[in-house]
């Protein structure tokens, strides 16, 4: 596992994207992406938890024994999630009400667990935090994208209620892209979630395939000369 920050960033955001590549953390990805704002909020909450848990696990990695490590990971996760839950209840109350059940469920989100298990427990402090940051950002990106797609096709708006959920400063990004009655309701309902995720994974595979082909062509050209 390379500690090179650029690699960590690229992996966390794209190559090893929690939702599109590893298919972890699917529960919040489907449930909380009815709008871009919700997706963004959910992603941010998870980001905070991932960074905090990566930090703590890396800090204590020398003292966590093999036998109890999973239990420790779970407890650290649970404590951080409780903190985030209470903080959001206090300071981001509207968002807290929307995300509801899924904030406590960050504990069992496979993504922080997987990062703790495979990275933070073995790597020093700074790379772990950077990895956590970019994994979280990749997750937030995935959720916001899904939310945006579902919201635009489903109700025609983008980032609706941003000022309500994230704070008055965000009013500027609220926009309506399609007239109200042109929305495809099913996108906001459960079937739409599965559909959008499936299609976005295909899109990612397509992009990866194209860039791989281009890289192959680029390296093949010199041999033709």
């Amino acid at each position, binding site marked *: 596992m390379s500690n090179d920050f650029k690699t960590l960033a690229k992996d966390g955001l794209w190559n090893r994207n929690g939702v599109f590549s590893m298919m972890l953390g699917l529960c919040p990805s489907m449930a909380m992406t009815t709008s871009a704002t919700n997706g963004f909020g959910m992603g941010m909450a998870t980001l905070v938890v991932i960074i905090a848990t990566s930090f703590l696990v890396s800090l204590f990695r020398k003292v966590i024994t093999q036998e109890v490590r999973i239990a420790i990971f779970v407890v650290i996760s649970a404590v951080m999630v409780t903190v985030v839950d209470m903080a959001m209840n206090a300071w981001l109350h509207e968002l807290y009400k929307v995300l509801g059940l899924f904030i406590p*469920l960050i504990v069992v989100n496979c993504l922080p667990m997987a990062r703790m298990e495979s990275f933070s427990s073995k790597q020093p402090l700074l790379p772990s935090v950077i990895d956590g940051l970019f994994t979280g950002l990749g997750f937030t990106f995935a959720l916001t994208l899904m939310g945006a797609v579902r919201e635009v096709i489903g109700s025609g708006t983008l980032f609706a209620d941003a000022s309500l959920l994230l704070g008055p400063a965000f009013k500027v990004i609220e926009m309506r892209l399609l007239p109200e009655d042109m929305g495809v309701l099913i996108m906001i309902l459960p079937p739409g979630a599965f559909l959008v995720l499936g299609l976005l994974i295909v899109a990612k595979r397509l992009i990866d395939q194209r860039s791989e082909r281009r890289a192959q062509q680029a390296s093949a050209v010199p041999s033709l000369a």
Partner: protein
Amino acid sequence: MKEMLLMMVSAALVNNVLLARFLGLCPFMGVTSRIDTAAGMGLATTFVMTFSAMMDWTVQHYLLEAYDLGFLRIVTFILVIASTVQFSEMVIRKVSPSLFRMLGIYLPLITTNCAVLGVALLVVDAKMGFLASILFAFASALGFSLVMIIFAGLRERLVLAQVPGLFSGAPIALIVASLLAMAFMGFSGIGTI
């Protein structure tokens, strides 16, 4: 009596844990390539979900509420669930080692199943009585198992179909899941909760 049944039907079908509430999606994508593994996982989850709901309800009422420790809910619940899983493993081994050999692999996966923690939290949020909570968890879990088995059946058929390269594996499974979710939407309107 009728209310209980209605509540159970709504927990199992109308607000299906997987297709409507989006809980438990990891095993949904993971172990549904064969019907028997899906059934094994579903039944194991039913067992764990019901009994951890029972434990969580007890802890909530006699410990957390009695001593105003509500903020410890997340931590205690996840520990209770993990203990329930360990306990179930030990118990199954004692009851029948041959059963354990068959079923042993599914149990640890259930610890991080969002459905178990999710249903436990839903149960305490709904503030129902003891038996109602247990039946709710049991019915939710049966709905979960049902959808897992149906989806596994669909995926087994999918293996024989000609799927375009890019779509193979996860994407086509997700698209099939969205159709299944659409079908289950037909249940909405029955009952409350």
